[in-house]
């Protein structure tokens, strides 16, 4: 079963992964966006770990909801509201339970991902974070490593796609051939989830 400490490990592992990969995220973003994705997520997840240390919420849902609110308040750009909504809605879907199962987390994450789709107006294949998150939710019903693998594969699969949402969409055909930075950071988030479970 997954408790509040598990969710905090997940958020710490995400912060560490974003730190490690910040330069790569920024490089991917400079190819088809505006070269700030790494720095923005770094700032956001540092703030998340700081607030979780300070307030130490005691249920898995409360941890994710607080993390989401913190991202909305610190990141800006599109990624702040989108990642913030993802975690906040996932947290809300988990309710007040002290412990949840992997299956329950998969279901809640599905609700979070749906909220992201609604907020950003994107769908599968638009070359966005959804292309990593949707397959991850599907695979999380099976196992944590399967989810990480599906998210990574989903991010890679954005390379030949043409962007239809966000800043990369201004490039039209020229966005083809580049991996989407948002899908890449989403794969990091799900990879960190598998790390926390290992």
């Amino acid at each position, binding site marked *: 079963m997954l408790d509040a400490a598990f969710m905090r490990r997940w958020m710490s592992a995400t912060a560490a992964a974003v730190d490690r990969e910040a330069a790569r995220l920024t490089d991917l973003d400079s190819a*088809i966006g505006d070269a700030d994705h*790494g720095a923005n997520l770094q700032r956001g997840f540092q703030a998340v770990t700081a607030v979780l240390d300070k307030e130490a919420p005691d249920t898995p849902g409360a941890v994710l909801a607080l993390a989401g609110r913190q991202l909305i308040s610190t990141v800006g*750009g599109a990624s*702040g*509201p989108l990642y913030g909504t993802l975690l906040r809605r996932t947290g809300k879907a988990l309710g007040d339970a002290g412990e949840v199962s992997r299956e329950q987390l998969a279901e809640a994450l599905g609700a979070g991902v749906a909220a992201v789709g609604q907020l950003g107006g994107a769908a599968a294949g638009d070359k966005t974070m959804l292309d990593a998150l949707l397959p991850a939710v599907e695979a999380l019903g099976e196992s944590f490593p399967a989810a990480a693998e599906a998210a990574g594969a989903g991010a890679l699969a954005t390379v030949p796609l043409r962007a239809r*949402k966000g800043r990369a969409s*201004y490039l*039209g055909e*020229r966005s083809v051939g580049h991996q989407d930075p948002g899908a890449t950071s989403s794969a990091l988030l799900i990879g960190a989830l598998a790390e926390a479970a290992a």
Partner: protein
Amino acid sequence: MILEWSHSARLALEVLVNMLINVPETVVADALRGIAAAHPSLTVDVDNRVVVRRDAPVAGQVALVSGGGSGHEPLHAGFVGPGMLSAACPGEVFTSPVPDQMVRAAAAVDGGAGVLFVVKNYTGDVLNFDMAAELAEDEGVTVAKVLVDDDVAVTDSLYTAGRRGTGATLFVEKIAGAAAVEGAPLERVEAIARQVNGSSRSFGVALTACSTPAKGSPTFELPPGELELGVGIHGEPGRERRAMMTSREIADYAVQVVLEDLRPTSPVLLLVNGMGATPLLELYGFNAEVHRVLAERGVPVARTLVGNYVTSLDMAGASVTLCQVDEELLRLWDAPVNTPALRWGC
């Protein structure tokens, strides 16, 4: 394709641009402290990233709040003052501000007549201003929003995030700001802002890429001898790359593209806007070419503004914005304005 990209990225990383900064993390805060030191007419909250005109709130007057990523100075903080914005919310470089900033700004400037959010049409700005509007309404502030989306370089709007907000932002903020001073109610100020946006079109070219402080090197590669047509204001590459053109050729191209989309039946306001690193000498020469093309096309120019107003860090290049005006919009454009970056009639 991937191999090709990583090769070019490595090359780009080798070239670090000299910048007049301390560390990348503090550029926005440092600039805000500098703005506070230079402009006593503004109240600058460095920690919360809100710039407010010192005499706010003005009772009974609609207040305009805008904001967006930093790196476009003087937009938006430079346009805070009587006759234009009541407050500006600067985000990180090229990153929209967070909702907390706009909520704070709205509360500080609301004089009881409501607040108009002027939002450039980028996914991040739209999401954060939407969230802020909801939160501000919860706190009892009446909020209206206007989206600025004037960039004709983005054509396929069904399959993109839609047109970008660029040079027309200045026209919207100035003209709607003047309407607010005249005592127009919120619905009227909002309608005028929409009219200005709907009557404006822009097109930009880059002669160099720009370098964000976080990256320290150009955000895309643009070799000498080439230019990028249809760029936005975030160092994102444009739609087409060509061999370098003359000022005359660029003016022909840019005005042509704008006029394909905006067919003015009355005089226009013209903004010849520098992207940040192009000298005024070149901008004025370009302005002469733009006037020549407009005269050839039979478009009368009512007013002209030349300078660096909606910039993209250290990018070289320029954009052309036209705004078709009727008598009312022209009168509001000519009305007094007193801000750090735009000042006349006072």
